């Protein structure tokens, strides 16, 4: 069981790290928004799964599942609110030099 907990937490941390790196590397507001919303989905869900696996009570695991469900609704809402505000304010999306894919 503790191996599962460790794997979930490590994978969650990995995606959080990638999201933070993405915020630093991305060129403009919209692309950074993508990087941040990534952490909220897989990173948070994996972290919560690890916490749920670590708890020995089914009821606690159910509560953590509620938190995950809430995030599934709240995260796209917040991301959309930020993106729409920027879009309506006319923040120009970066389209720069499209770098060659591989």
């Amino acid at each position, binding site marked *: 069981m503790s191996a599962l907990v460790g794997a979930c937490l490590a994978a969650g941390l*990995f*995606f959080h790290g*990638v999201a933070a*790196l*993405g915020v630093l*590397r*991305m*060129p*403009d507001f*919209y*692309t950074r*928004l*993508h*990087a941040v*919303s*990534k952490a909220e*989905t*897989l990173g948070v869900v994996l972290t919560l799964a690890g916490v749920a696996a670590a708890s020995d009570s089914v*009821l606690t695991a*159910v*509560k953590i599942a*509620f938190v995950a469900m809430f995030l*599934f*609704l709240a*995260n*796209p*809402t917040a*991301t*959309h609110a930020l*993106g*729409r505000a*920027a*879009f*309506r304010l006319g923040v120009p*999306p*970066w*389209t720069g030099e*499209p*770098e*060659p*894919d*591989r």
Partner: protein
Amino acid sequence: MLSLFVVCLVFWLLLSGHGDVFHVTAGAAAAALVVWLNRADGTIGAVLQALPRLALHLPWLVAKIVRANLDVARRVLDPRLPIEPAVHRIHAPLRNDTAMTTLANSITLTPGTVTLDVEGEVLVVHALTASAAQELAGGAMTARVERLFGTAR
């Protein structure tokens, strides 16, 4: 409104974890208060009716999120940062607000695409990569939400 009461009460019982008379009575009172406070809101019934459909939608969406997440992670870690960000307009003829919201939320949840705005039946979407935009333009997600909800109100 009875269904809202039941959902609230079950939610309360799962959070409290106590089945004794005091906790159940307090939960029933709280659930009744929520129903009474929302007595004028006609949209809650439609949301509750959509819950089973959303539950069917979820496993497919989670699989997509995982795949797209790995793709974006690979691009962020790539030293060349291979991204082709652009704004796209997607025509989605969903007449139902709940269906439109589900589609917009699904697009935003899927890494690589964020719904910026809704203009009638057109979703304004910012895509991080050309492949994410192509997948969206393919309309698989729109077709799926359409099947879940139907096109007519």
